[in-house]
């Protein structure tokens, strides 16, 4: 008997058999539905596109998704701690600009003759500083995150222009080339970095008390406050973590593009979509680090498959938009049915 109770309280897939949990059933249907879509797209591309289902190509997609993936994971942390309402809750619009500035700092320091360690420290410090400003604006000044990070985004994008004068700053060092090469299987090192980074962040967010507290602060701020959680410190920490992700993404992009380039702002909306879409790949339809990784890879494979099939890449943004609308509509309708 007691074994049964314990079993039921485990977040097992067997939950869907319980008659009382229609909501879980619906969520499971959607979750597996979206995974099924992912799988079927994968199979279709494998059958139709030559070279799609090769270790090299899959590794390539992982590598190409690394920068967007790291950014989207940073945004996911803010989404978790800020709550599901994107307008008044958690969002970090400064992430893409953060990546641009961090990359510019790294490349400029290399140009000035500093070593990789100094340049990397500079990039990470830049990300940290941007995160800290966001945190202060949101937690201390009480500005809505949407607005605070929007203003910070403008300042950061401006600083990047000042630093690079809107040009490409080339940078190539041994460390950078080491990151952007592939191993003997043809899998880019960036792919391993993405997987490793996701594993570490997922371990912290999904499996430690700290992560649980972040969810509590985001979903039930009043309850979290009543329980004595340091609300402000946790939210501030989430923005700083997001800023650090921006700095890391900056380093990865310098390595991937052999320098800092302009136009990092273009990354913003795709990253937002990736992070928001990520919650579909989680058990309870909430933002999770692993869900965001799957979402980033999903988009990566979509783009890659389109390229291999010679389909116009202009369709990708439309497919992304349709996907998010279909998924969110399905979620909403399922939740309605549940009530």
């Amino acid at each position: 008997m007691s074994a049964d109770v314990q079993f039921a309280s485990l977040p097992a897939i067997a939950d869907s058999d319980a008659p009382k949990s229609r909501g879980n059933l619906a969520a499971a249907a959607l979750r597996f539905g979206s995974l099924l879509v992912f799988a079927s797209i994968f199979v279709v591309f494998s059958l139709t596109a030559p070279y799609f289902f090769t270790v090299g190509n899959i590794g390539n997609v992982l590598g190409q998704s690394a920068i967007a993936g790291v950014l989207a994971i940073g945004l996911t942390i803010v989404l978790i701690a800020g709550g599901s309402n994107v307008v008044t809750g958690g969002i970090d619009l400064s992430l893409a600009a953060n990546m641009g500035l961090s990359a510019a700092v790294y490349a400029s320091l290399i140009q000035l003759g500093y070593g990789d360690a100094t340049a990397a420290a500079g990039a990470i410090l830049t990300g940290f500083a941007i995160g800290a400003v966001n945190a202060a604006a949101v937690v201390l000044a009480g500005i809505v995150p949407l607005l605070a990070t929007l203003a910070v985004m403008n300042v950061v994008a401006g600083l990047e222009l000042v630093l690079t004068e809107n040009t490409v700053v080339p940078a190539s060092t041994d460390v950078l080339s080491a990151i952007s090469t592939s191993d003997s299987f043809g899998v880019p090192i960036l792919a391993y970095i993405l997987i490793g980074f996701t594993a570490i962040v997922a371990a912290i967010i999904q499996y430690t008390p700290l992560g649980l507290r972040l969810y509590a602060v985001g979903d039930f701020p009043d309850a979290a406050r009543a329980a004595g959680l340091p609300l402000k410190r946790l939210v501030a920490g989430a923005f700083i973590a997001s800023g650090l992700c921006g700095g890391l993404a900056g380093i990865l992009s310098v390595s991937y593009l052999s320098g800092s380039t302009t136009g990092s702002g273009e990354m913003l909306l795709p990253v937002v979509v990736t992070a928001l879409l990520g919650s579909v790949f989680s058990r309870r339809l909430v933002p999770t680090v692993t869900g965001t990784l799957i979402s980033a890879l999903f988009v990566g494979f979509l783009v890659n498959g389109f390229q291999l099939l010679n389909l116009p890449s202009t369709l990708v943004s439309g497919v992304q938009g349709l996907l998010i609308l279909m998924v969110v509509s399905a979620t909403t309708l399922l939740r309605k049915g549940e009530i």
Partner: protein
Amino acid sequence: MSASISAGRPLASLSRYGLILALIAVFSIFSAAAPTFLTPGNLQSILVNNFTLLAIVSIAMTLAVSAGGIDLSVGTAVDFASFAFVSLVLAGQPVALALLAALLAGALVGAFNAILISAIGVSPFLATLGTLFIGRSIQQLLTNGGNPVYLPPNGVPYAFRFLGHGTIAGLPVPLLIAAVVIASVAVLYSQMRFGRVVLSIGIQPSVVRYSGIALGRDVAVIFVLAGTVAAIAGIILTSTVTVYIPSSGNAFLLNAIGATFIGTTFSPLGRPNVAGTVLGVLLLSIVSNGLLLTGLNFYWQQVGTGSLIFAVLAFSFINQKAVGA
């Protein structure tokens, strides 16, 4: 008790007028720093070149935000209207018909959002974000991968040029159109029942629902209206520059969000409001024009704009928090 209330008052008004103070401060600084700033020609240039289009798009944004939502696809409505307008004028159709088609195109974008938000129940942020992405793809498909559509400079009908460059009683037509849009939406909120219902939806949707008001329908109307208003900006944009550039309308998005939310500091309750939005747009316009005139390095201008807005926001929100609003 009464002492604490009267002590709160001056602070409350300070927060409310923080935006006006910021405007006055910015205006004075630029008047002193840039000799050409305070000339009639430049002031008109601020209104025509910086203010007009952003004001109209920001009013569209304010409509959506006042109903408790947000519209990330205002730029898409601008683009679709612009494309419809250019295509029909290029095809030799009368300008009146092209105008109608452009407004319809914007309304269509709004209607798509409205279906998602009201009928299905998708959150406005996600619904309009999806619309933005789909809209971008559609535009690229329509233009062979994103090629601009030019109108021949001398083949443009007079009515078309009039919309972009004409004057009535010495006032530029685009500015007059913006004024009409602002005034109409202000009247909608202050004088009409519909406007007040929308404002209450934004503040407390459950109460509105209990009052027996068809919430979904009103929200749907607001989003169609937002698309249509944004379309007006698309029409003026196209008539001014005689070219349609795919996805160029998105350039307004972040500034429109900024202006609308800066405007919320003007309302005692921190709600979006037309007057606040207009002041917010004015602030953004003056800052970008003024920084240009000070001869500051082009790249520093964006830093300046961002920092100034950040300062205004911090000031307003800290005050609001001090008041406890």
